[in-house]
């Protein structure tokens, strides 16, 4: 298929739009998550979404996207609540709590997935696609749902931009000004959950964390301004999404998630190695030039 054919192809257009939307939203929200040191929160919440997807299908018998997304959103939210509860009520550290939520919800999700796949009405294009993503299955209505979710998430983020910046940089000071850590954490967690919902069909639950962490980590290498970092992160996310989706769509039966993450890895590694001010290689070069001649 030639390039023009690719771009006018209906399926491919949906795939590209879906992947780009996901990249932008996860890039923007991932920036705040990464700066707050909460990159892995998204990982736990994404895995926690799986049992919600399966339960929604088992209860309604429907595979309609809004139904499954609702289930996913509720489950991810319950995961977030459980996480908060564990951190508050026990002496476990946050990373241990993240591990528990991720493992428990995901195991439960896999069990339900097996049950769901045994049902007579489970067709071949089953719920498995939510594990690693299968963007080729996106139809126009799915993309519209994703676009609406993306618009809501981006507008909400823009509205509380200054508050989220405070939360990421100095939550205690923000709290002393009256911007409570509690409400803002809930807002950020909710927005991250929305980003996960957008990514379910494209990259799937297993690799979603990479879409939240990768673009932001790469963007940080190139700039010292938060606004620029957010824009770059969105661009990196979208680029990885589009490239990965193209590779996945060009050969049948390649899941989209791994291809997108592969494209993202190239961006991240390149940024870590070559970014002028913070990159490993420029830094090595500067040190080498600054060092005095080694005596023989």
């Amino acid at each position: 298929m030639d390039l023009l054919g690719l771009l006018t192809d209906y399926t491919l257009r949906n795939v590209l739009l879906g992947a780009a939307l996901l990249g932008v939203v996860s890039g923007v929200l991932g920036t705040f998550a990464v700066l707050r040191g909460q990159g892995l929160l998204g990982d736990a919440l994404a895995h926690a979404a799986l049992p919600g997807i399966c339960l929604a299908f088992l209860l309604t018998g429907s595979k309609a996207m809004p139904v499954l997304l609702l289930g996913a959103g509720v489950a991810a939210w319950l995961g977030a609540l459980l996480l908060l509860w564990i951190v508050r009520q026990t002496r476990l550290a946050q990373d241990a709590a993240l591990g528990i939520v991720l493992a428990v919800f995901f195991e439960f999700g896999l069990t339900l997935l097996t049950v769901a796949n045994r049902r007579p009405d489970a067709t071949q294009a089953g719920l498995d696609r939510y594990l690693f993503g299968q963007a080729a299955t996106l139809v126009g209505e799915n993309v519209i749902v994703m676009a609406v979710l993306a618009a809501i998430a981006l507008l909400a983020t823009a509205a509380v931009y200054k508050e989220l910046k405070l939360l990421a940089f100095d939550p205690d000071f923000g709290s002393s000004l009256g911007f409570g850590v509690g409400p803002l954490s809930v807002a950020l967690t909710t927005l991250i959950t929305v980003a996960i919902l957008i990514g379910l069909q494209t990259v799937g639950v297993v690799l979603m964390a990479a879409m939240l962490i990768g673009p932001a980590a790469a963007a940080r290498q190139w700039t010292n301004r938060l606004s620029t970092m957010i824009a770059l992160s969105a661009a990196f996310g979208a680029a990885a999404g589009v490239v990965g989706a193209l590779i996945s769509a060009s050969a049948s039966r390649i899941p989209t998630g791994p291809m997108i993450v592969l494209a993202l890895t190239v961006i991240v590694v390149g940024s870590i190695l070559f970014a002028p001010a913070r990159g490993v290689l420029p830094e090595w070069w500067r040190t080498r030039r600054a060092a005095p001649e080694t005596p023989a």
Partner: protein
Amino acid sequence: MTPALEVRDLTVVYRDAPALDRATLAVPAGTLAAIVGPNGAGKSTLLKAVQDLVPRVNGEVRVFGVPYRQARLRVGYVPQRTAVDWDFPTDVLDVVLMGTYGRLGWLRRPGRAERETALSALELVGMRDLAHRQIGQLSGGQQQRVFLARALAQQAELYLMDEPFAGVDAATERAIVDVLRGLRAAGKTVVCVHHDLESVPDYFDWVALLNVRVIASGWVSEVFTPDRLAETYGGRLGLLTRIGMA
């Protein structure tokens, strides 16, 4: 006259051990006040508990006679410099602008007026030339001045400062003392967690000696005595001998 800060029976418990035990004190308005005590005495906890940043088991906090929540905008805060990640992608002016966020409230963005406020605050701490410097490139003393400027941009009446002199160079220390005296001259009240006992009589009018409990509080000339200090520091007199007070 109504005290600037009034704390009554403030108790904070971390895990099982009390960090603050029924702390009670009243800082007179228009003074420079120090809170001193050994490590783990609950000095930072006191400043945090006053501002609802840590949960308190018991106690009451009044600022200029009204509950803290109603007086939030009249309180400026300088947290410990080490409380934040200075590799955060932002510049000096942007951090100082955060001081204006409280008055702006939710959703409103800082504009030209807030920028002017922030630049004036930077002028006061001698950092205006560095307004656009990336914060990761600042020295410890400069970081401390940025935090001080951010609190000044709050345009508060009571300032709570957590170790503003910790790890700063001599020039920064003088600059900060000048700012504090300027605040007092303008009728503001400053409460500092402070480590250097030697400089207490020089810098401060009022002092609270804290070791989980408030051992004593009042004018420096009256309560900053060797026996009270010995009681606060658990009789570690070597320290007091060294500063020539025992």
